[in-house]
């Protein structure tokens, strides 16, 4: 028995994991918040800015699993859509206020992530992505069939949150600017949380698992449990993005759970750069900008996004931001 045959299959990891260093790393949360603050003023439309906010956070949550833990999931629509649906249902069917509803949404997507994560982590390596995709399809078809609760194909409607009372102030959510900054608070909190996790001992543990599962196990890390916790955190963050989307749109389209939504977040993360803090936001911005610009002259903007994505996989696997910081970090 040769010793090489016992080596675990190479851990899945993003092509080139690169992170910010120095100033960009130390000030990443204030810098992100500063950029988010000016976003509605520099982008062509406020609608685009809100989408960058929501999908950017979605991609950040996804990146915790893909970029930092090295697990490629194709089922994260389940947590984004799950968070959105549960928040919407909590308001529409149970009459909860917007804040408890959001909490329930995030808690629900965390539970969903715990279940899907526990099942998919039982498989190793490349099968992980197949199982996550299949289980998220299970969530999609369940929502499609449970139309009494979810509205089925028409999506969930009837839970408009027009205003929110926060600490004595009333935020008018029908005003796009107020809504943007209202939602930005949640994104900022989530970013602060992610940054905290990445700096924590657990952040070191997931990087160790990404870099070398076999070695991490030999060092004393329970690899499966580490992955599961990362999966749950990732699902919870995507759930936050989902609840924000529900509050923003006042409907939850069934598409929120569709494979297409899982695809989008993979592409955004790759385009920006997996394994970096700002990469997913950059990716979401670029993706949505391509959509915004290209859809002016063709309804088939997805073809352009797809081709750009393929070119990135072939020639720029670190993504836009990842390539920039690799260049900045060069020796």
């Amino acid at each position: 028995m040769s010793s090489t045959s016992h080596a675990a299959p190479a851990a899945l990891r993003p092509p080139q994991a690169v992170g910010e260093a120095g100033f960009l790393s130390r000030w990443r949360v204030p810098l992100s918040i500063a950029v988010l603050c000016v976003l509605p003023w520099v982008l062509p439309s406020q609608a685009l800015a809100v989408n960058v906010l929501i999908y950017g956070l979605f991609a950040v949550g996804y990146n915790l699993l893909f970029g930092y833990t090295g697990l490629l999931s194709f089922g994260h629509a389940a947590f984004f859509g799950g968070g959105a649906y549960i928040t919407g249902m909590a308001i529409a069917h149970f009459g909860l206020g917007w804040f408890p509803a959001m909490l329930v949404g995030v808690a629900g997507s965390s539970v969903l992530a715990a279940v899907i994560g526990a099942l998919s982590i039982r498989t190793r390596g490349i099968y992980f992505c197949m199982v996550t995709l299949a289980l998220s399809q299970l969530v999609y078809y369940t929502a499609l069939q449970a139309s009494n609760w979810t509205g089925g194909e028409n999506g969930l409607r009837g839970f408009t949150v027009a205003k929110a009372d926060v600490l004595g102030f009333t935020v008018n959510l029908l005003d796009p600017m107020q809504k943007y900054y209202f939602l930005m608070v949640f994104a900022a909190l989530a970013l602060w949380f992610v940054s905290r996790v990445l700096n924590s001992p657990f952040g070191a543990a997931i990087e160790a698992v990404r870099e070398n599962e076999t070695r991490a196990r030999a060092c004393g890390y329970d690899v499966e449990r580490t992955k599961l916790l990362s999966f749950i955190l990732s699902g919870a963050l995507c759930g936050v993005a989902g609840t924000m989307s529900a509050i923003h749109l006042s409907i939850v389209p069934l598409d929120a759970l569709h494979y297409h939504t899982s695809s989008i977040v993979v592409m955004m993360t790759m385009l920006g750069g997996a394994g970096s803090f700002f990469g997913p936001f950059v990716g979401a911005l670029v993706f949505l900008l391509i959509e915004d610009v290209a859809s002016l002259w063709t309804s088939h903007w997805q073809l352009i996004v797809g081709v750009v994505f393929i070119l990135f996989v072939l020639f720029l696997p670190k993504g836009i931001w990842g390539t920039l910081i690799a260049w900045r970090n060069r020796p």
Partner: protein
Amino acid sequence: MDLELFLMQLFSGLALGAILVMVALGLTIIFGMLGIVNFAHGALFMVGAYAGLWVASLTGSFWWALLIAPIAVGAFGMLVERVLIRPLYKRTPDDPLLLTFGLGYVLVEAVRITFGTDGIPFSAPESLQGVVDLGIGYFPLYRLFVLGVVAVILVLLWVALEKTRFGLVVRAGARDPLIMRVLGVDVSRLWLLVFGLGVGLTALGGVLAAPMRNVSPEMGTLVLAEAFVVTVIGGMGSLLGAVVAGLLVGVAVSMTALFAPEMATIVMFGLMALILLVRPQGLFGRPGVGA
């Protein structure tokens, strides 16, 4: 419960499963040899169906479509392997996967542009329409035909894998890629052929499925997920597993439709979850491989 209805549904499930067997076999063969999960597999199934539709409309013959479409799509698969996937073998297994995923995305949109976004009906040739009396009940002739074609393909594949040098190399290579170097096989050409074969099989599945459902650009998404379910249930990398699990899933879906139609699509994912809990390596998988 009416016995005849039960048998008809069982039979219908087998036909559905036979299509899944084609798709899952293609996926498994590619994975076994090249070590990559082809995420464009569902899209190529859909492209197969459209190619069949197109050839049938040009030649006016379903038979030409059945022959030409899988070969043409298989050839396209070989082009993809050579031009797009080949530069990525040196990288992590994620990269070819992400590339085929992007390709699937592009193919769906390309088909939407070419054939429109709406579903197109595709009817079986007249000689295959109608029902046939098998003594125990009446069965749709076309589904019988699908089962027959898939059975023939399985026999051909079995002969190719068990009785030819090509098959010997494929089987050995799927177990241990090092063996191929020892045998002095031109790996690059073999991978090209295997990718083409795998894609051809899913395209054939697409053509065969077309008369049983509408042809639409989105038809590949569910098929991709179904193929993954079959692969997980059957066992990672096991060809026999793909066949057994494909038929099993087909029958399970069909039978559930009889009792609880709203659960039909959901049941196979539940089946997969159950397998992951009790036997994560799948029915025919070896422990340690993928689980």
